């Protein structure tokens, strides 16, 4: 079915753009997805992997909200690992090594088959604006497209500038043209531009690697799906490989620092500290003479290998010598060299929590353009932007996400509420309610909302309801079922737990640190539950029983925060006029313009006294009692 006049134009089919288009189209809004090269749809510009701590949780949330990322990940997964298995369920996180080509293929298949999405190959060069509202876009060939909303997801492309040694040239990423006209246009429209940078390591020809001298890192045996609702066919699984830098590598880097764009004084943009270049690592951490490197295959039928850990912006010939100084890579050939890239992005504090620009209405921004980094972060924002753009057109209420219910909410609140001063990435430590924000319960947390919004259908919500019921049944079973000392003592002895002298409920038993649900059911027989059922819910049941105290404390704090989030701060409130707030506090408030009391409470530099005064001030502005 051909898409008629688009209502929404999405600029750029990266990770953010695909989710934005998908979410809007799922709400029945016709979307035009304009991208410079559809063959590069959802291209992974950097490492060929999805997930990881916090990011993995986010992908699950995107899936629970009907997004596409998990499905593409499952379809392209050539190695799976669950991280943090030695820790509790809250911080366990799935990570997948993706076949780069298959990922693009899977995403493209999904996007292009959506009846409400039309993909065109075009470079957008300007927005059409009148009366403070965006009205459409113009492409580099002069074609105009009208739209009632535009979602900007141009990634690292805006004024993108690749740097290798002392050389630099405009590009969106290696092999793709930069988007310069649009960047000029956006600045002229008053978007507050910032300059960030990132970098990528060289790719090697796998045939020239001496694998015998590397350490193999196989994936997990278990089959895992990022998607709660869809089942992809499992691809052949591959291993990653580990090696390390030598004294020679270090010497090469330090001796040639002047030649690197980063240390030669060429780069202006701010880079992410959590993703340092090898130059950074050797300079900033002189005590660590050796750095681990990981070879990640880029796909099943490609020989290209991603050299994780050697991100740099050295001239090509230095890069080659660096690679050859690494054990097992003495003969390795570089297929593509590493580079640094600088790009424009825009201060996310100029966004509403819906990701609509507060400067230009109808314009939504998502992904790298908001100063974040990472595929998952981009995808999450894309979903929020697409969803809200569509709902605005349908005259429906906006949807925002709270820190209390998702990593998505944490990210949005962090960037919109506080701004970013380096490319922003999610970490589990950013989520103060992370015991609740788990990969295993993303569906329970978000699918009901998704269903209500129309992002998922009845079959999907039925799956979630069934899981919920199963959980409840299991909890009930544990509290209801009591066992006699004679029955249970041999088990307790076997796990080194004190013996029982009266009948005890399974729940009570499970509270003991030595008792695990798996071993307990193993001993007693699973009774009413099938192994498959148990697998789905075991970790969370155990968590809920064993760490109830922690969960309750988190819940109490969540409640308070939620209530503070309900208190909106009028967008026209003049903070500078509230003289009883400390000078620093006023400045902070004016700069970040928190939209809720909760956001204000998280601003550094604001004292409890300032907050009290702010509340009184809000009261004067005719705040009504929050509903409920």
């Amino acid at each position, binding site marked *: 079915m051909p898409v008629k006049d688009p209502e929404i134009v999405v600029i750029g089919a990266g990770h953010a753009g695909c989710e934005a288009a998908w979410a809007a189209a799922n709400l029945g809004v016709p979307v035009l997805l304009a991208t410079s090269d559809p063959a590069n749809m959802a291209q992974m510009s950097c490492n060929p992997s999805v997930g990881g701590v916090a990011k993995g949780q986010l992908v699950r949330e995107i899936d629970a909200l009907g997004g596409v990322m998990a499905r593409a990940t499952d379809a392209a997964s050539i190695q799976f690992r669950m991280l943090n298995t030695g820790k509790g369920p809250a911080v366990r996180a799935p990570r997948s090594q993706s076949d780069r080509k298959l990922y693009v293929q899977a995403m493209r298949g999904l996007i292009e088959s959506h009846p409400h999405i039309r993909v065109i190959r075009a470079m957008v060069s300007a927005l059409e604006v009148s009366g403070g509202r965006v009205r459409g876009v113009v492409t580099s060939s002069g074609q105009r497209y009208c739209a009632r909303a535009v979602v900007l997801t141009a990634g690292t492309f805006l004024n993108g500038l690749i740097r290798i040694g002392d050389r630099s040239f405009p590009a969106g990423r290696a092999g793709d043209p930069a988007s310069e006209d649009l960047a000029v246009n956006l600045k002229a429209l008053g978007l507050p531009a910032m300059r960030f940078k990132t970098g990528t390591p060289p790719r090697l020809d796998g045939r020239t690697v001496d694998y015998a001298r590397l350490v193999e890192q196989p994936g997990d045996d278990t089959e895992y799906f990022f998607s709660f609702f869809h089942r992809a066919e499992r691809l052949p699984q591959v291993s990653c490989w580990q090696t390390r830098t030598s004294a020679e590598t270090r010497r090469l880097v330090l001796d040639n620092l002047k030649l690197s764009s980063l240390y030669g004084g060429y780069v202006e943009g701010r880079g992410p500290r959590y993703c340092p270049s090898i130059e950074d690592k050797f300079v900033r951490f002189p005590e660590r003479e050796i750095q681990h490197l990981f070879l990640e295959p880029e796909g099943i039928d490609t020989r290209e290998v991603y050299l994780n850990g050697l991100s740099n912006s050295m001239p090509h010939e230095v890069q080659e010598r660096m690679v050859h100084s690494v054990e097992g890579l003495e003969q390795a050939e570089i297929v593509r060299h590493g580079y640094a890239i600088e790009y424009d992005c825009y201060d996310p504090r100029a966004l509403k929590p819906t990701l609509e620009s507060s400067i230009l209405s109808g314009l939504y921004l998502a992904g790298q353009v908001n100063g974040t980094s990472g595929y998952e972060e981009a995808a999450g924002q894309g979903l929020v932007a697409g969803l809200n753009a569509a709902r605005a057109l349908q005259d429906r209420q906006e949807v925002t996400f709270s820190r209390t219910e998702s990593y998505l909410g944490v990210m949005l609140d962090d960037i919109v509420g506080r701004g970013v001063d380096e490319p922003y990435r999610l*970490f*589990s430590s950013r989520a103060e309610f992370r015991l609740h924000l788990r990969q295993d319960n993303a569906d329970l947390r978000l699918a009901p909302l998704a269903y209500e919004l129309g992002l998922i259908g009845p079959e999907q919500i039925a799956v979630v309801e069934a899981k919920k019921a199963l959980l409840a049944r299991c909890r009930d079973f544990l509290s209801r079922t009591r066992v006699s000392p004679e029955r249970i003592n041999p088990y307790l002895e076997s796990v080194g737990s004190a013996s029982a002298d009266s009948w005890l409920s399974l729940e009570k038993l499970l509270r003991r640190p030595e008792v695990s649900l798996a071993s307990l059911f193993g001993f007693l027989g699973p009774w009413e539950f099938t192994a498959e059922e148990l697998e789905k819910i075991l970790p969370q049941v155990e968590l809920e029983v064993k760490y109830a105290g922690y969960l309750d404390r988190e819940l*109490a704090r969540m409640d308070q925060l939620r*209530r503070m989030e309900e208190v909106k701060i009028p967008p026209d409130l003049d903070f500078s006029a509230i003289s009883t707030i400390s000078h620093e506090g006023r400045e902070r408030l004016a700069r970040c313009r928190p939209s809720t009391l909760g956001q204000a409470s998280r601003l550094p530099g604001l004292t409890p006294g300032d907050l009290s005064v702010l509340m*009184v001030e809000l*009261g004067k502005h005719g705040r009504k009692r929050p509903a409920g």
Partner: protein
Amino acid sequence: MAESRYSTRQSGREDTIVAVSTAPGVGAVAVVRVSGPLAWEVGEKLAADPAKYRAIEPRRSALMTLADRARGHEIDRALVVKYQAPASFTGEDVVEVQCHGGLAVPAAVAGAAIAAGARQAAAGEFTLRAFLNGKLDLAQAEAVDDLVHARGELDRRLALQGLGGSLGGLVGSLRSLLLDLKAELEYGIDFPEEEPLTGLSARLESGLCRVAETVEGLLAGARRNLLIARGVLTVIAGEPNVGKSTLFNRLVGEERSIVTGTPGTTRDAVEMEAMIDGVLFRLVDTAGLREETGEVERIGVEYSRRYLVRADLVVFVHDVTGPVDRAEKSFLAGRDTGSLLRVSNKIDLLQKERKSPEGFIPVSAVEGTGLDELRRAMVEKVLPSAPAGPDGDSFRGPQVASLRQKNLLEDALAILRRVDPGASAEYIAADLQEAAERLSEITGAITDEQVLERIFSRFCVGK
């Protein structure tokens, strides 16, 4: 926000908070407020007579005895008012206790409330709750109160800083240590593919130990500070005729006689003040009681019930010419020796070769011998770490200046004690965070992305 889902707010998970709502140390009456879903239950646990407490109607005040039931002693007689949500100043269930002013009684009431399940309120928390529940005028008043409080606390902090070091500095460094440890845990959580840190559990153990010990030290000082501010309640105990009244007169100074003593909060006994080496002692003699009851056998029981449990210091007097064991048992059962002094009186009657028993300070109240030793011992009990020198030595170092600070430290300590070093890192991290937040409340610092800052500056992360 959209959709019905958001309007069905879960509620009732808010915890219950307590705070002394009048500036501590001043005024004859103090108000202690408890607010939150468990406020009424907490109030009930404070009441010596729960049935009487339950019978109070909301908004009606009743005079009743408050007790620390966990420790089994009375605190005070106080006016208690219950307010029912939403008709209260925070919009939650509230119990308001009007008790004797000063530091000790409000501290004891708040302490008992905490033991009964409440938590020390954070700065501005009453205002916040009032505000969130649409109690604007009250929130406004409360906000002003917060500011006054903050100023009062600052004054006291400054005053004490003159004496010792800065509490903020020390607490800040403890908090920093906790966040350092948390950063190490978070590094392990957020970067599982990096090199794991070695020796973390040892660092964790020693770090937690250090923080806990320092907090304990501060708390020990806190007790003393609060004592000094209000005077040390010192009960002179012992069997009849051992010479208690004589000793009492000696200690308060000859010119004061029992007859002119004002019956104090202890009502049935005589209370007089004596300043010894700059420390105020509120000496209690029980002569009045003896005369009124005339029941010699019951005196021991009366003592323990009414006075001994409340005393900061007990001076147990024994007649050196009589036996010791029986008397000591009946009076002093269960009392910790940290707040007990034993005195052998009437040593003037002693034959040369006989000595006063071990651990007893020999005095003669009649002749005045040994009184200097007794006075010195009394001061040392209060200032155990360093006997007060002429320059106020014992106040060297940071001081806890307020009940709020003390309660926050106690909260933090309780959290640190619950840390299970064997638990998965995220749970330990949660406890460290919570403890650090409690400490932040003392310093007024606001936690930010400090943990990530620490990770990035200390560890080489990112493959």
